[in-house]
């Protein structure tokens, strides 16, 4: 009797399990990691996952992304339309680790991802998210990430070509407005690490198209530690604007060497996020003051243009103990897009990534609606066409002041620097 009862019970359990498996959809997170959700009425937390560089050479950027996403969720109150949101972070310092972490997260029910720092994760996802029916919102700037139409891969950030061209456009503007040098007489010096050649290329193309002369081009290897020879060359070159494209590892020794050798370029327009960061600020006002830097929209734009930016800045600093980098704002903005999209849907439909992707595709935001200022309007290839505004900041007394464009700026540029 006991054996028969047990057999019936086991058979019943097996039948229920099989039915549950048969009903699951690969695009549904509830089928993989959120069992017991729908039946009980209360939905399980909705996972938004991020694979970012939490170890390795770029972990500072990876952590900024993590912090920005965390703060966005905190400001959101931890839930949307009554359903809790759960953030899941994983470390992806390289492609192999990213793929393994993706497999793990996927098996644990993650179906919606936000870009991490850099493009490692984005490249991995660009190749497979349609097949896996995984929704991915990229913030990376590599234009070639988009290889063709996709239902699940979206790029929310600006692209590198626009960024590089933008820097040269600003240089021309500075030349004409402040130095009284027309574009065809302007001479610039480009100093950049090999790792960032893809940022320099569109600059050079833009310069060639507008008659700007590249008076000096120094493309140094990533492991360069001593810049005295490059500074000596700068000292012996006739140019109007110096455009360094650098990260923290090379930007700091380069700027120190300029200062040590008693050489200050007439105008420096930094391109690349190093020139927005606290490590650059750590060099001291004597070095940093007057230097201009182009970036994505940064945490230092005017409150009137992007309501909430001041709260973001203050809360971030209070929570994490340092001023936010542009990366943190990017992740914050990406999370805001997801929240806005989720708000338009019934929480029960969120686990269907096809529906979620469609809602994201149709989502639109005006410039200034989100804290990062950029608007949202995806084209046929899922590129955000409203992420094309860049800002130029200037360091003044150790603080970044937004000096361009007019509707985002908080201060007037001082060129040449008064010092």
């Amino acid at each position: 009797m006991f054996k028969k009862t047990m057999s019936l019970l086991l058979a019943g359990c097996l039948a229920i399990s099989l039915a549950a498996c048969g009903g699951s959809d690969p695009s549904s997170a509830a089928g993989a990691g959120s069992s017991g959700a729908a039946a009980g009425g209360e939905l399980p937390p909705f996972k938004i996952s991020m694979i970012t560089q939490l170890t390795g050479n770029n972990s500072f950027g990876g952590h900024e992304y993590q912090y920005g996403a965390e703060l966005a969720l905190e400001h959101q109150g931890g839930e949307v339309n009554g359903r809790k949101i759960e953030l899941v972070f994983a470390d992806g310092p390289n492609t192999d680790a990213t793929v393994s972490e993706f497999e793990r997260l996927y098996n644990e029910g993650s179906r919606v991802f936000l870009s991490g720092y850099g493009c490692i994760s984005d490249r991995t996802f660009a190749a497979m998210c349609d097949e896996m029916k995984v929704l991915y919102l990229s913030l990376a700037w590599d234009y070639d990430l988009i290889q063709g139409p996709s239902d699940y891969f979206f790029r929310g950030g600006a692209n590198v070509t626009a960024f590089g061209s933008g820097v040269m456009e600003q240089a021309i503007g500075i030349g004409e407005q402040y130095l009284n040098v027309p574009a065809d007489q302007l001479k610039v010096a480009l100093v950049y690490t090999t790792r960032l050649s893809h940022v320099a290329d569109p600059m050079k193309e833009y310069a060639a198209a507008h008659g700007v002369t590249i008076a000096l081009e120094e493309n140094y290897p990533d492991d360069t530690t001593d810049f005295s020879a490059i500074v000596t060359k700068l000292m012996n070159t006739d140019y109007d604007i110096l455009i360094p494209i650098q990260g923290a590892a090379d930007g700091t020794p380069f700027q120190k060497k300029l200062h040590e050798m008693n050489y200050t370029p007439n105008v420096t327009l930094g391109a690349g996020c190093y020139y927005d960061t606290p490590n650059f600020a750590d060099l001291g006002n004597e070095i940093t003051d007057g230097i201009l830097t182009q970036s994505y929209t940064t945490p230092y734009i005017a409150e009137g243009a992007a309501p909430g930016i001041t709260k973001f800045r203050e809360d971030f600093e209070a929570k994490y103990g340092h001023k936010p980098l542009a990366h943190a704002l990017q992740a914050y903005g990406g999370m805001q897009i997801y929240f806005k999209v989720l708000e338009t849907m019934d929480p029960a439909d969120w686990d269907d990534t096809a529906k979620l992707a469609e809602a994201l595709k149709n989502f639109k935001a005006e410039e200034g609606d989100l804290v990062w200022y950029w608007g949202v309007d995806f084209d046929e290839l899922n590129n955000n066409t409203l992420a094309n505004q860049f800002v130029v900041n200037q360091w003044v007394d150790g603080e970044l002041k937004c000096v361009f464009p007019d509707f985002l700026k908080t201060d007037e540029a001082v060129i040449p620097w008064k010092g």
Partner: protein
Amino acid sequence: MGSAILGYVLNGICIGGVYGLVSSAWSFQCGALKFANFAYGASIMLSMYITYFSIREWNIPLPIAVLIVLVMDICLGFLMRKTVLWRHDRNTQILCTMGLSLIIINLVDFVFTSYPRDFGILETRIFFTDSISIGRTQLICFVMSAVILITFQMFLSKTWTGRSIRAVVQNKEVATLMGVKGARTLDLAFALSYILIAVAGIMLMSMYQVEPAYGDRMQSIAFIVCVSAGLGNLSGAFMSGILVGVLEQLIVGLLGAQFRTPILYGLFVIILLARPHGIFTRKQNVARSI
């Protein structure tokens, strides 16, 4: 132009002297002691981090911080000799030390994060003319490198312990017959070579910023310098270091930074093909050169 070239050469000499010191320990380990230590760059990087954190973050007075780095490096060298370098098979040594290098890099990343660390000291420069100058710290490091290497050479040639090391390196069996304890002497020699690594790490930290991958750069430099000089040739390593430093500066200054790596490594390949035992070593038995 002439003054610029003179500036490149002077800077190259100062930087090259430090390259020489950085490379000499590896030359000693790999060429003379026959230990293939590919955790060398990571060890220098670790020394730099400990120097930075001892002084900047933990507020330890400089002399004590230096002592801490020295002791840590000697212990690290001794432990390595007793563990990953215990076997004499070169392939095992290479693989084990490469593995150890990754462990050190990732541990540093985990403990200290990969944020570039820098003392933030602005170097005072000695100006000969408006356009010719050298860094005071670089000059001091160059002189110290030379003094340390000369002292180390004297230690090897003048002291009983140094002579024991040389004896074991040249012929372990005969040295053992003469009463020298071969294994213990090699332990000591390897641990002592880590003093050079510690000093190199401290000097580099005073000039440059450090990040976990920094050791790879130093490992590459050490490789070029040592093989060019001839493995095991300490004074040759110093001279070769200067040569590499000057060449680097001249290539960057006259041709462009993008040409540094291909030309430097191209010359390295030519030297290897033309003089496999190095440009500063004549005899095949490189151990004798120490």
